[in-house]
Every structure is written in C-alpha cells, then in structure tokens.
C-alpha cells in the first residue's frame, strides 16, 4: 500500500470502520451504563431538584474555591486543551468543510494562523498536563496504562494535523492520512476508555446535581 492508497483507505473503509465502532460502542455503552437505573429517593426533598442537574452540568466547569491554587496545571491546562480542541475541531476551516460535507451545516471559521496558534497552545497544555501527571503524586499514583495511552491517542490527531498543515517531516498526503487515521483510532478507542467521559460527564454531573439539590445543596 502506498501513501495514496493509504489515504484512500483511511477516508473510505477506515472511516467506515472507525465511525461504525464509535457509534456502536457509544450507544452500547450508554445503554449499558444508564439502564442500571437508580432507586427512587423516598426522603422528602427540601426542594424539588428541578433543573439543578443541568445547573451542575455548567457549574462544575468552574474551579471550586481554592482549587485553582492547589492544582493550577490541571485547571489551566485542562481549560486550554479542552477549549483548544473545541476551537480546532469546530472553527478550523478544513474541519468545518468536513462537517459541512457530512451534515450540510456550515459556519465561518477562524483564520489558519489563529487555529495554528490554538493548536500549538493545545499541544503545549497537553504536554504540561503530561508532565503534571508524572510530577503530581496523586495523579502519578492513579495513572495506569490507560491514562498514558489515552493521552497519546488524543495528542496524535493534534500533532499530525498540525504537521500536515505545516508540511513537516512527511509529504502532505502521508501526514493527512496519518492525521485521519489517528482520529479514527481516537474514535475507536473513545467508547471503551476513560475518554468516554465526554458523554458520561453530563450524566454524572446531572446525578450529583439533582441528588444533592433535593437536599438543598447546590453542588
């Protein structure tokens, strides 16, 4: 297989496989997790939970008092790389082109230079977080193979995408194919690792928020 056949494969059969596994795995896992159900809370609520679950979904995105100081890299790095990924994926012109292609929806993107900057910042933040994972005792203690693996799987699409655009190291075609392949690996891995938090995060925050709201505590 030459580099061009490689590209043809990743944008055709490879993409089919990756998207298929991603969708299958995601729907499966969501069922598997949320069909376990939970008991009804019989205690009289202090107040109705209402939209508290939703409030927590948003509130938890802010650092609690004092925590920023205790783990600055987690928060600042976390913000930069999560927002960075969102900016690259949703505001990068080639990605908007891709989304338009798949869904017909389109919106204006950011100039390539800004996306390039966001990419570099995202990679820097991810590297800082990797160093933090090695340095911070609690993080290092919790880390398993999965943590290093998922870091790499998330980092590679950013790196290869950036290298493809900058025409670094390998011919564009190969880099582009590697970029698409790395995204496909990410898609395949996502439902079965901690990366699945992109979905369950909302459920978790919701559960925590609504259960505690019944007690009258905004969490």
């Amino acid at each position, binding site marked *: 297989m030459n580099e*061009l*056949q490689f590209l043809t494969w990743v944008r*055709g059969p490879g993409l089919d496989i990756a998207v298929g596994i991603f969708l299958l795995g995601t729907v499966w*896992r969501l*069922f598997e997790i949320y*069909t376990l159900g939970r008991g009804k809370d019989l205690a009289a609520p202090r107040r109705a939970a209402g939209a508290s679950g939703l409030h927590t979904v948003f509130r938890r995105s802010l650092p609690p008092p004092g925590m920023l100081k205790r783990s600055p890299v987690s928060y600042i790095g976390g913000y930069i790389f999560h927002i960075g990924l969102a900016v690259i994926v949703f505001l990068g012109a080639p990605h908007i082109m891709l989304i338009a292609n798949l869904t017909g929806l389109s919106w204006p993107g950011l100039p390539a230079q800004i996306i390039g900057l966001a990419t570099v910042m995202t990679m820097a933040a991810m590297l800082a977080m990797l160093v933090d994972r090695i340095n911070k005792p609690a993080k290092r203690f919790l880390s398993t193979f999965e943590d290093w693996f998922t870091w790499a799987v998330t980092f590679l699409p950013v790196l290869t995408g950036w290298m493809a655009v900058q025409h670094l190291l390998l011919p564009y075609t190969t880099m582009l194919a590697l970029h698409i392949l790395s995204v496909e690996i990410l898609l395949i891995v996502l439902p079965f690792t901690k990366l699945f938090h992109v979905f369950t995060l909302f459920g978790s925050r919701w559960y925590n928020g609504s259960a505690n709201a019944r007690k009258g505590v905004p969490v």
Partner: protein
Amino acid sequence: MQGPLIDTLARQGVSRRTFLKYCATLASMMALPPAAGLAMAEAMAAARRPSVIWLPFQECTGCTESITRSHSPTLEGMIFDMISLDYQETLMAAAGHQAEEALHAAMKANHGKYLLIVDGSIPLGQDGAYSCIGGRSNLEILKEAAQGAAAIIAVGTCAAYGGIPKARPNPTGAVSVSDIVKDKPIVNIPGCPPVPVVMTGVLAHYLTFGSLPDLDDKGRPRAFFGETIHDRCYRRPFYDQGKFAKTFDDKGARRGWCLFELGCKGPVTHNACATAKWNGGTSWPVESGHGCLGCSEPDFWDAGDFYKALSMPAHPPTSVVAAPVAGATAGAAAGFANRAKKNAARKARQPITVADLEK
C-alpha cells in the same frame, strides 16, 4: 492491407525516421533501454500480423473512439494496421452471422496464439442476459475466446475493473475480465477512456518482445501507471506551497493553482495523462482547469464526490444507521442482563445481622 508495416506507413506519408522516433519515445515511456527503441522499430516494421480479436462487452465504445477517432491520423491509429484485427464489431464491415463466422474462423485458425482484447465489463446478473451477442452472453463468449488466447488485454476501466457498469448499485452484476479469467496472462489498461499511447505501447511491447510488460499489483503496465497524476502534475508546485483554487472561477483557479480542494483525485490516481497528454499532446483535464476524476483506478465512480477534496470522507460513513441500531440492541441486551444480575443478587442476599459483622 498487405506487406510490412513500414511500407504501409510510408504510403500514408510517415517516414522511417518519424517511425523510429516514435518507437524511441515509446521505449523511453516504457522505461526500456534506448536500444530497445530500435529493436522495437525493427520488430514492428517487419512484424507478421498477429491475429487480434477484440470483444466488446458492456461498454460505451469510448475506448475504441479514443484510439480511432483522432482528428488527424496518428501513429497510434496506424499501429492497428500491423495487426490482423479479425473481429471488432464497431469497425468491421461484416455483421450478423457473417461476423460471428469470422470470429470463430479466427479463433480456430489461430488457436493458442491470438491476442484477445476486451473492452467493457461482463454482466453476470440474470444469467448474463444484460448483454448478449448473437444470443450468447458475454460471459460465455469471453470464456470461449479466452481459452484459445495467448494473452488478454483488458482495455478501459470497465474491462479492467468493472468500471461504470459496476458502480453502485451495480444493477447488471458487472465484473472485470480478471474476475472471470484466471488462467491467462492479463494486462489491464484502465482509463475512461485509456490513453491511446498506452494501448499501442503495450501492443508494441508484445509484438517486439513476444511478452507482456511488467505489471503493478493492479495488473497495469508499470511503465505507464507507475506514477500518480499528482507526481507528474505541472500544478504540483502550487500544492506544495499550499496554494489552492477554492472555486472554479476564483483568483486561484485563474492563476492555475492546485485543484486539490476542488476534488482533484490526482494524488491517488495512477495514469500517464500528465506526461502523455491527450489530443496529440494538446492538453489534459487538469491543464484545462478540471481536477482529475481518477478514472484509471478501480471503483473510481464510487470513490467519493468528484468535487470533494481528498481530505474529506470518500462517501458518507456507511455505518451511521446500522451501527447505532446494533449498539442499541446490544446495549439493551446488556442492560437487561445487568438488571437481571443485579436483581438476582438483591434477592439472593440475606439481611445481615450483627453476627455477620465478624469476619
């Protein structure tokens, strides 16, 4: 036409010198050593005319047009003068039973020696009823003709890979020659239509050396299909600089920038267009401002939108409906199993007493 080819050519105003030059070019295109050009010229000039049978199946006659309908007589066209084209429906004067008789006579006379050229795909649906000649299906004809052939040349993408008839949903069940014939040497000369010089080049090689040229993994002569359109494209520098035309009438398009983002399939297409060009070297698709369609690659018709950049998905992911449905089914089954397990555990559990608190 009788006599050696060189005389025929001379009668048509082609000098020996021109013919030699042509052979040298052909040899160089096929990456043969310079001396091969002379050998080729000599061999062809003196060639005994081998019998060639040309079978048309599910095709549009574009391949034949490509070779014969040039605006002025070309050497490519004349090369055909050096073979004994014993059967070619489009070109032959005979028709009906007469034509079929000619075919069988040629096959019988030259059994084991004739060269079989096929254009068009072979439909397998409805027992081959989609395409019949003289009441016999293409499949039957091909099998019979292949038996006595020395080698087969599958001309055009249809014969080589199934081509447009095979495009989804492939209503006729079209397949390529190599899907049917497994025991004969086959050369694929894909293209929709194929570049004329490639066809004559392969013929020349066969006539000169009595063998088929070196082939790639898709059965194509490496000499003509070894590189991609993109590799040899004159717009390649713009690609390397990241200069892309975004529409067919923007500034980039007018300046001749790379057509990658407009869906050019050059980077994944192996063919000789960029070097051989078309219409006697006048131009070729990319030069005229349109991206390559990738017509010499298998299943090019289904390889995604012609106007979609190669960095885009070739086609909408096929699994977007099936995968979530399968996931939901499997997930629901897992959910049921989990709940059953959980309930069973709860039911089986004995309430604990203070005595249980001891280990």
